[in-house]
C-alpha cells in the first residue's frame, strides 16, 4: 500500500514540479524517489506498514513486492532515459514523467490487488497511460497510428475483461480475490465463472500479446516512440503476465483438460508465430515485438504448472525485462535521430561503439537463453518445470523455437560486428550506457545467482 501511495505522490510531485519550473531537477528527483520507494518495497528500511484496513483491496505479499520491485526498477531506467529522450520537448517532460510514474502505479496495483476492482482500475490506468504514450508523438503519423490501433484494440479487449469480471461477480457476488478463490475451490465448476475467467484470460492474453491476440503488438511497438516501446515491451508485458498468473492462480480453474489444451496451443502458437515472424523483420523494434510475442509463449508455460511456478515466472520476467531494457537502451541511443529503427543503423556498431554493442549483444544472448545470462536459467527452469508437469511437447516446441530465435537475434549481432558503417559516430549520453550496463549487470548477477530472485519471492 505504501508503495502505491508513494508512487502516486511522486507522480503528483512531477506535475507540481512543472508549475514551479523545476524541470531540471525533475528526472533526478523522480529517479531518487523511485529508488527510495524501491528500497522501502524491498524492506531495506522499514517505513512501517499502514493499517491493514486496506488489505482487502491491496495486499502486498511477496509476490507483489517482488514484481513491484522489478516494475520500479524498470521505471527508474525509463525515467532516467526520459531526460535525454525528451530534451527537445521540455514543455512536456513533466507530463511524460508523471504519466510514467502513474503507469507504474497502475502496474503495482495490478500485481498487488486483492480485489478485482483494483485489478481492473490498475489495468485501465496502465493501458490508458500507454495509449497516450503510444500516440504521444503527435506529429508523427506512425505514432498516431500506433496510438489509435493500441487504443481501439485495447479498449475492445477491456470490454472482454470487464465482461469476464462481471460473470465472476455474477457467480459469487463478490470481487474479493480471496473469497473468489475459496468459492471457486469449493464449488463444482459453475459455467458463468468458467466463462468469466476465460474472458479475463483472453483479455490478458491480448495484453501480453499472445497468438491470436497479438496482431497489435508489432505495429504498435514499431509506431510508438522508442522509449514507449521499451515501456510496453518490458514493463507492460511483464505486468500483464504477473497479473494473469496471479488471477489464474487464484481462480482454481486450471485442472480442466480443455483449459490446459488451450494454454498449450496458445503457448506453442505464440512461440512459433512470434519467432518465425521475427525472422524477416528489418525494424528492430518490430523484431523485438515479435520476440516479445514468443517470450509470451514461453511465459505461458508457467500457467501449465500454476501451483508452483510463481518463482520461475518471476525469474523469467526479471531476465526478460532486464535484457529488454538493456536492448532498448542501446536501440534508443543508436536510433535517436533516425527516421526508423532498421537493422542497418546497427551496422558496424561493434567497431564504432564497442560498449553499446557488447550490451546489446549480451541482452540478445540473454533473450536467446545462452548461459550465464539470466535468460538461460529462466528458460531452463521453465523447461524443467514444464517437463515435470508432463508437457514435453511444449518444451520441445520451446526448444525448437529457441533455436529459431537465435536466427534473428544473431542477425542483429551480425550487423553490429560484420557490417561496415557509413555513419559517423555520434555522441551518446552517459545515461544510455548506464541503463544498458546496469540492467545487463543485474541480468548477469541474477544469472549467476538465480536464488536472489527466488529468495525475494519466498
Amino acid at each position: 500500500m505504501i508503495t502505491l501511495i508513494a508512487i502516486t505522490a511522486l507522480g503528483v510531485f512531477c506535475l507540481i514540479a512543472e508549475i514551479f519550473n523545476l524541470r531540471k531537477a525533475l528526472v533526478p528527483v523522480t529517479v531518487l524517489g523511485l529508488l527510495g520507494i524501491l528500497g522501502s518495497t524491498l524492506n531495506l528500511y522499514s517505513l512501517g506498514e499502514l493499517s491493514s484496513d486496506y488489505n482487502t483491496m491491496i495486499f502486498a505479499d511477496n509476490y507483489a513486492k517482488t514484481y513491484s520491485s522489478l516494475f520500479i526498477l524498470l521505471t527508474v531506467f525509463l525515467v532516467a532515459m526520459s531526460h535525454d529522450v525528451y530534451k527537445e520537448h521540455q514543455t512536456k517532460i513533466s507530463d511524460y514523467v508523471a504519466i510514467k510514474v502513474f503507469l507504474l502505479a497502475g502496474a503495482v496495483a495490478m500485481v498487488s490487488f486483492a480485489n478485482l476492482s483494483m485489478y481492473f482500475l490498475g489495468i485501465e490506468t496502465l493501458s490508458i497511460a500507454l495509449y497516450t504514450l503510444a500516440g504521444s508523438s503527435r506529429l508523427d503519423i506512425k505514432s498516431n497510428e500506433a496510438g489509435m490501433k493500441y487504443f481501439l484494440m485495447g479498449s475492445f479487449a477491456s470490454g472482454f475483461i470487464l465482461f469476464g469480471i462481471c460473470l465472476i461477480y455474477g457467480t459469487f457476488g463478490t470481487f474479493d480475490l480471496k473469497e473468489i478463490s475459496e468459492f471457486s475451490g469449493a464449488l463444482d465448476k459453475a459455467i458463468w465463472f468458467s466463462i468469466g475467467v476465460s474472458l479475463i484470460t483472453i483479455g490478458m492474453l491480448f495484453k501480453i500479446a499472445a497468438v491470436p491476440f497479438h496482431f497489435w503488438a508489432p505495429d504498435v511497438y514499431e509506431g510508438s516512440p522508442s522509449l514507449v516501446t521499451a515501456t510496453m515491451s518490458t514493463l507492460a508485458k511483464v505486468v500483464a503476465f504477473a497479473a494473469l498468473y496471479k488471477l489464474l492462480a487464484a481462480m482454481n480453474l486450471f485442472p480442466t483438460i480443455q483449459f490446459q489444451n488451450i494454454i498449450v496451443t496458445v503457448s506453442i502458437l505464440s512461440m512459433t508465430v512470434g519467432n518465425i515472424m521475427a525472422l524477416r523483420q528489418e525494424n528492430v523494434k518490430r523484431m523485438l515485438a515479435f520476440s516479445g510475442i514468443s517470450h509470451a509463449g514461453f511465459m505461458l508455460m508457467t500457467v501449465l504448472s500454476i501451483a508452483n511456478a510463481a518463482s520461475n515466472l518471476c525469474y523469467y520476467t526479471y531476465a526478460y525485462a532486464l535484457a529488454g531494457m538493456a536492448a532498448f537502451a542501446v536501440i534508443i541511443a543508436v536510433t535517436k535521430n533516425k527516421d526508423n529503427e532498421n537493422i542497418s543503423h546497427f551496422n558496424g556498431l561493434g567497431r564504432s561503439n564497442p560498449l553499446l554493442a557488447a550490451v546489446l549483444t549480451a541482452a540478445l544472448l540473454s533473450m536467446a537463453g545462452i548461459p550465464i545470462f539470466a535468460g538461460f536459467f529462466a528458460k531452463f527452469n521453465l523447461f524443467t518445470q514444464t517437463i515435470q508437469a508432463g508437457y514435453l511437447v511444449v518444451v520441445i516446441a520451446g526448444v525448437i523455437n529457441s533455436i529459431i530465435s537465435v536466427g534473428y537475434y544473431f542477425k542483429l549481432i551480425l550487423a553490429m560486428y560484420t557490417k561496415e558503417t557509413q555513419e559517423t559516430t555520434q555522441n551518446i549520453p552517459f545515461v544510455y550506457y548506464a541503463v544498458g550496463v546496469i540492467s545487463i549487470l543485474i541480468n548477469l548477477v541474477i544469472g549467476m545467482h538465480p536464488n536472489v530472485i527466488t529468495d525475494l519471492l519466498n
Partner: protein
Amino acid sequence: MDNILNQIGIENYIFLSILLFCIGVFGVLYRRNAIIVFMSIEIMLNAVNLLFVAFSTYHQDPKGQVFVFFSMTVAAAEVAVGLAILVSVFRNIGSVDISNLKNLKG
C-alpha cells in the same frame, strides 16, 4: 420488497446483455469510422454494466453497482483519451477511417 427478477428472470438480462455486447462487437468489426467504433465499444461496456446491475440485484449486493460506477469512470477516461488520439490522427491524415491506418504492417 419483491425481487424484480422474480418477474423478469436473470436469464433475460443475461441474454439482453449478451445481445447488446454482440452488437457492440459487431459494430467494432463492421464500421470503419473510428468514432462509430468508439461508440460500439461504449455499447459493449454498457452491456456489461447492465449485467452488473442485474447481478447486483440478483445477489442483493451493492458492490456490483459500485463497480459499475468505476466502470463508467473508466469508460469516460477511455473516451477522453481515445478522442484525443482520434483528433490528432484526424489532424495528421484528415480522416477518421481506420482502414487508412495501414502504414505499420508486415
